């Protein structure tokens, strides 16, 4: 299979307005990814699926990532080819911010396997995929309002103690049990 630089060059000639960046991956596994812009993502996806040299017909994994410090949410797609048995080609798309500009184009019309996975990213991260046929919560119940996998999610205060408390659980217990009880008197001390 061709390298990511060659792929990027071909994509830029095929889709003229595409703004693609290569995101390097310093780990030993050699899986760098392509950062796409939201306007041309659908066209790029169609190209990757239909190009006879690539035939990336199988979208294996859709992941949501919350980059709290950088201030955006991200969706990562891992693509493989069943026909030509190569891969992975990794795509990334980033939202504008984490509050109101959380829209990304859905790639479900290109690969059907994104359907449930994009719903899960919406449910747990809050990224709204435009063009998804049925975007609603999938793992949490419908009345739930938070996005639990975000880094700044605060869990509900639903347990007051822990049998073997670590630091956070000890803090929580101190809030509910402010008075430390008197130490037990042994018979020898009395």
């Amino acid at each position, binding site marked *: 299979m061709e390298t990511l630089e060659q792929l990027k060059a071909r994509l830029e000639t095929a889709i003229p307005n595409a703004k693609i960046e290569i995101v390097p991956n310093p780990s030993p596994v050699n899986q760098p990814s392509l950062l796409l812009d939201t306007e041309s993502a659908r066209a790029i996806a169609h190209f990757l699926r239909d190009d006879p040299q690539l035939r990336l017909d199988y979208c294996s994994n859709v992941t949501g990532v919350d980059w709290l410090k950088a201030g955006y949410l991200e969706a990562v797609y891992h693509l493989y080819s069943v026909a030509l048995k190569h891969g992975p080609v990794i795509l990334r798309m980033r939202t504008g911010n984490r509050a109101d500009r959380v829209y990304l184009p859905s790639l479900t019309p290109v690969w059907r396997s994104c359907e449930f996975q994009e719903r899960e990213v919406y449910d747990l991260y809050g990224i709204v995929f435009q063009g998804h046929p049925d975007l609603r919560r999938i*793992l*949490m*119940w419908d*009345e*739930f*309002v*938070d996005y*639990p996998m975000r880094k700044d*999610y605060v*869990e*509900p205060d*639903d*347990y*007051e*103690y*822990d*049998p073997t408390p670590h630091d956070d659980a000890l803090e929580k*217990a101190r809030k*509910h*049990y402010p008075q*430390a*009880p008197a*130490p*037990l008197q042994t018979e020898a001390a009395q």
Partner: protein
Amino acid sequence: MIDASLRQEMARQGVVTTTVQELYNWGRKNSVWPLQFGLACCAIEMIAASMARFDIARFGAEVFRPSPRQADLMIVAGTVTKKMAPQVVRLYNQMPEPKYIIAMGACAISGGPFRAGYNVLKGIDRYLPVDVHIPGCPPRPEALLEALMALQKKIDAQPLTGPDRPRHLDANAPGEYLVPECGEHDLVPSSNSQLWQPPVLVRGE
């Protein structure tokens, strides 16, 4: 109570004596029908307990009923999540008395390894009265059989009259338990305060 030697003499002559309570409880404890209700990994060990090697049929409990209307025992096997908790309580309410619960596995007792999860209910005893707890992750099928035997001992000891009598013989006992609702952030209410209070911490500083 009848004198033991008199009992033995009569038994030698072919006359069996017992009390109504013993007979009643003997019949009940040896045909406890569980509800076919596996939630997670512990369900596989529960199924293994009903298979040929461990054989729960010896205890009269092989008939796993899918319908709660026909079951006596609910083995909560696996993690109860907040999304599933209303369903579990509703199923328990639909079971006719006398009914029992075994909380199988660490997740059903207290949330288990997933205690820190936002969607995990930290123990089914927050909403339902549990009779026997089995620790383990997952507990071996032998542990489930031990729990069943402990439940049988408990049923055997239940008197028919008096203040300790079980719920199904007491007209004032609650028939149904509170079904929680899925709220915006958590279950509403987060536990049934009549059934469960957070335990008292006694710890020296």
